[in-house]
């Protein structure tokens, strides 16, 4: 087999140059604001001032809260995911398992702004549970602050952890089940000696992923933080630019954010690599995978109850979007000219950034080496959307009216944010394609453009479609980038939702959330549907 650092498709210098161009563009996108900010900081701040701001209690509090809430969210998400997963595996009915798996795949594509709104609709002081307790004359606590943030982060990441662990366990060889049955491994022993050890190897990776997502979570914290006590670095950057217009503080916060995320990335990349997942698990025997071992652990009442609670926890916010959204006069709200305009803007921005992301991903995945490809997600981690948008805003306002360039910047930054996901989908598909058809292509001498035309593009149109749909959905639901660039001149659907939520028009906000959710899930659903009715190579599940 080919070495892992070889490019997946192209060897022509032409496509390699294209890939280099894309990489340079990405580097410019990420590093320009950094350099510009450095110059700006030098010009506008004296060193003693900088030191003063670094000891600024607001900055320190934001830093501490960022790390603490991320750590708590990670521990809660993983701590709950493992018992939920074990309960899920004990269910005898395949359709129940499939339903739970489907539900747990939905939060991944739900826009953060919609999730935050839905959490308020279910757990807020005017929400479903509060309505219940009001009947009983019992008070209901406010969720704004750490509580609400943790609820939302667990809503997103507990199902994510369940799905990743579930996939890890499903990648176990079928012989493991047979061996466990024959050797009489049951219940706790089986969990301890088999499942727990297999999961343990992916816990570190999943935990760092979740910690990152939560440490850089912006929209949820902005909407549910509810005050200076619960503010993360990202939200503090936003507030210092959007409200206080305190440039000095914004600059320092941005640099601090980059330093923090950069440091975590560095720490993680130095960590030990998992020993599993390599050669031991690669061969799956087609013939034996048809056999299903009859015995599963008996489902106990407590795991059944746990599963129901988890199902409701993830399902109710979706129910709230649908039910509350439908009862908020949606047609009337959707027909407003401002909403129609915002929808059109969102779709145009979404299509444009999805197109860019897919194109970039194709160029990179085809021609760059695997090692280079791994840099892209790292860049996206170190430079979260709010950092990029704040950095570019501060940079270009030195020269031009930033809001004239807002649409273009929103499109480009959104594309960059979607890029790691799209690359993953396309890279996986290209790998599979090379394993299946590479030798044949080589033997027949199909290469260059005819290889793309005859072999790669026809076989991979579905992964491309999936990647495009995912990038589109991501950009459609984005609030982190548009938060700073949005204005009366540039309103996307999430921006409109936020301004409605901010001015206490929660009825309108939830009706718009229903619209946004429908658009996002239609895009993903259509791509899924095409995939299901076509026999060519499937995209890897996310």
């Amino acid at each position, binding site marked *: 087999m080919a070495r892992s650092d070889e490019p997946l498709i192209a060897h022509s210098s032409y496509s390699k140059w294209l890939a280099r161009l894309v990489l340079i563009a990405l580097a410019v996108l990420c590093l320009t604001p950094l350099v510009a900010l450095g110059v700006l900081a030098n010009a506008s701040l004296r060193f003693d001032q900088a030191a003063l701001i670094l000891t600024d209690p607001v900055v320190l509090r934001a830093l501490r809260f960022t790390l603490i809430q991320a750590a708590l969210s990670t521990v809660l998400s993983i701590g709950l995911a493992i018992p939920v997963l074990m309960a899920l595996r004990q269910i005898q009915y395949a359709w129940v398992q499939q339903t739970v798996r489907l539900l747990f795949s939905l939060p991944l594509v739900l826009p953060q702004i919609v999730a935050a709104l839905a959490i308020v609709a279910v757990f807020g002081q005017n929400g479903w549970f509060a309505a219940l307790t009001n009947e009983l004359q019992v008070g209901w606590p406010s969720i704004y602050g750490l509580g609400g943030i943790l609820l939302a982060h667990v809503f997103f990441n507990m199902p994510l952890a369940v799905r990743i662990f579930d996939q890890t366990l499903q990648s176990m060889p079928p012989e*493991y089940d047979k061996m466990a049955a024959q050797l009489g491994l049951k219940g706790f*022993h089986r969990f301890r000696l088999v499942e727990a050890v297999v999961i343990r190897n992916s816990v570190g990776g999943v935990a760092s992923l979740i910690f990152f997502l939560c440490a850089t979570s912006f929209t949820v914290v902005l909407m549910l933080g509810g005050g200076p006590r619960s503010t993360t670095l990202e939200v503090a950057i936003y507030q210092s630019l959007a409200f206080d217009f305190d440039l000095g503080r914004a600059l320092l916060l941005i640099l601090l954010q980059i330093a923090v995320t950069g440091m975590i990335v560095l720490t993680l990349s130095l960590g030990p690599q998992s020993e599993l997942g*390599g050669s031991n698990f690669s061969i799956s025997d087609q013939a034996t995978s048809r056999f299903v071992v009859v015995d599963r652990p008996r489902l106990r009442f407590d795991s059944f109850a746990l599963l129901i609670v988890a199902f409701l926890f993830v399902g109710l916010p979706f129910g709230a979007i649908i039910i509350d959204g439908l009862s908020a006069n949606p047609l009337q709200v959707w027909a407003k000219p401002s909403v129609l305009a915002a929808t059109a803007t969102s779709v145009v921005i979404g299509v444009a950034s999805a197109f860019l992301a897919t194109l970039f991903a194709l160029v990179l995945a085809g021609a760059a080496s695997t090692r280079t490809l791994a840099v892209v997600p790292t860049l996206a981690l170190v430079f979260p959307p709010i950092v990029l948008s704040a950095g570019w805003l501060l940079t270009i306002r030195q020269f031009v009216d930033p809001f004239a360039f807002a649409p273009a910047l929103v499109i480009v930054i959104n594309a960059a944010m979607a890029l790691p996901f799209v690359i993953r989908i396309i890279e996986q598909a290209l790998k599979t394609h090379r394993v299946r058809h590479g030798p044949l292509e080589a033997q027949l001498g199909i290469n260059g453009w005819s290889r793309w035309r005859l072999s790669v593009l026809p076989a991979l149109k579905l992964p491309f479609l999936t990647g495009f749909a995912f990038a589109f959905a991501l950009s459609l639901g984005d609030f982190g980038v548009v938060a700073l660039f949005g204005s009366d001149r540039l309103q996307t659907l999430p921006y409109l939702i936020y301004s409605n939520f901010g001015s206490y028009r929660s009825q309108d906000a939830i009706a718009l959330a229903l619209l946004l959710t429908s658009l996002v899930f239609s895009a993903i659903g259509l791509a899924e549907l095409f995939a299901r009715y076509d026999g060519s190579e499937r995209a890897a599940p996310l």
Partner: protein
Amino acid sequence: MTGYHVEMRNVQFAHGGDDSGFTFDVVFEAGKITALMGASGGGKSTLLNLLAGFLQPATGSIFVGDNSVTRKHASDRPVSMIFQDHNLFAHLTVEQNVGLGISPGLALRQEDKHRIAEALKSVGLDGYAHRKPSKLSGGERQRVALARILVRDRPILLMDEALASLGPGLRQSILDLVLKLRNAKSLTVIMVTHDPSDARRIADNVVFLADKGVIGHGPMKEILLSPSDPRIAAYLGTT
């Protein structure tokens, strides 16, 4: 000690999605090595999985000696099985993998560890106790699996193409090891193989599967050297 025979009485089983099922009516002789042969999809693995208890027959009974095991759980059957691959949990050491044959909770006493060491010695893996399976060759992993068979001490040994991914030299040495085990413990061995030379080396009998059931059964020499059924001759390429 003469071992136990294995009998399948009118055992019927159909995989989900298949139109017609298999019917197995066969007796495997006590203390003998029987090679189970036939084309792919002929039911060799299905037969072993039925014996091991990984699949439940629709009708019919399975006997080991005079006792029916048809309704017994896989772990309660007097049967051990070796697969082509993944016979060891990758995350456990060799000693732990063998130890699972003694205690499913891995509560190993000192004397158990001695037994494990003895078993490893007799399959030629002295001193391998604390290695992980990923550090072993394919042949060594199958030897560890045999060591577990030794400590588990069940009278029936099923081998599901256990040698298929090994080269000819390794195959012979493992086959000889199986023969040694059978002689020492009077094991009844049923081994699925594609390779007539495996059968010629150690098998006493051959059972040949085709057309959803057993079509040939007899001493190895009779079946392999002068097959009466044209389907067997065609499979062996001796026509």
